[in-house]
């Protein structure tokens, strides 16, 4: 039995396992190209055309358009590759945390500080 066979979800937490990796392959492949400056520029010039180049689904494209990080996770996005997308938008990990939790960035930061007390 793999630890992944446990069917109980962990609230607010995604397992990027085989199912998600299959689902998000094209999306993550696109985001992987963002290591490259030229790719980032090409994406910014025409986001949806760039998505099409990698065969993203409509759901994935919509989530890219909306900067919907939770939607991207649910569509198979891997946080490390998504970070390269949000990086293009100038968002750091605390901004991304705020988006996902629905908090303001200030509240999100305050929550982190509180965890240290």
């Amino acid at each position, binding site marked *: 039995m793999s630890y992944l066979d446990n069917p109980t979800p962990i609230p607010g*937490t995604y397992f990027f396992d085989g199912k998600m990796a299959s689902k998000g392959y094209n999306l993550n492949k696109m985001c*992987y190209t963002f*290591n490259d400056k030229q790719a*980032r520029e090409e994406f910014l010039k025409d986001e949806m055309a760039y998505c099409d180049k990698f065969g993203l689904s409509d759901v994935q494209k919509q989530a890219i358009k909306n900067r919907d990080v939770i939607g991207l*996770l649910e569509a198979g996005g891997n946080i490390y590759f998504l970070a390269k997308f949000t990086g293009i938008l100038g968002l750091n990990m605390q901004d991304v945390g705020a988006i996902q939790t629905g908090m303001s960035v200030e509240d999100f930061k305050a929550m*982190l*500080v509180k*965890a240290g007390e």
Partner: protein
Amino acid sequence: MAKIIGGITTSHIPAIGRAISLNIEETPYWKPFFDGYPPIRKWLGEKKPDVVVLFYNDHGLEFFLNKKPTFSIGVAPQYISADEGWGIATIPPVTGETELSWHICNTLVEDEFDITICQEMKVDHGLTVPLQLMWPGNTYGHIKVIPVCINCEQHPMPSLKRCFNLGRSIAKAIESFDKDLNVVVFGTGGLSHQLDGQRAGFINKPFDLMCMDKIVNQPEELFQYSVRDLVEQAGAQGPELNMWMGMRGVLSGKVTELHRNYHIPISNTGAGTMLLENN
């Protein structure tokens, strides 16, 4: 014979690299974190290690999901720090230790570790930030680095026990290497953090402190935590503890804790810094 002199744990998050670039280490936000490092730098300056075995994970620079190894070992003469996409400054090339690297690989395969051997590798913040922390001003030119990369990005991930045993086998290789080298081991990453999901920002201080205690004298007690347990108790990125376990496996049974620091938050993370001398 090569000698394992000690182990160091450190966070490797990109925000640290950015803080170093911006020269804001002494600001109130960063000071409590950076204050953990001078004692370690002093120790490194005195002990003068020749080689660092550096456990880290690649967050999508060198490895994509087309071919994702569980364990990969660098055997290159040099490693290049490259653009990661979101603006962290690169650092000068890192020198490898080809001969010892291959000796480690030979031993690992003999010991039934199914490694991926890398003769060319771009290295990301997981490897570069710890070097910047230990050798300010990127003065690591005299150090040879052996990268040991553990999959923490895609499930299934290896267990804490497997990573510890990976370290044991690496220790065997180092101690049978016929050159007088002083080797230090870095376990980078961790501790508790969660980057993704509605639970983003989750940190578990008591769990982190427990891990820091156990890693010193009872690392095997941590075997009880499955990767799932780590996700649950230390957040989705909690499995980065695997790199600490790999480091601890390289050390002998008994170690002396010379220094520790723990600080929350650095970015979204509980940052643990430790210096363990090998007995």
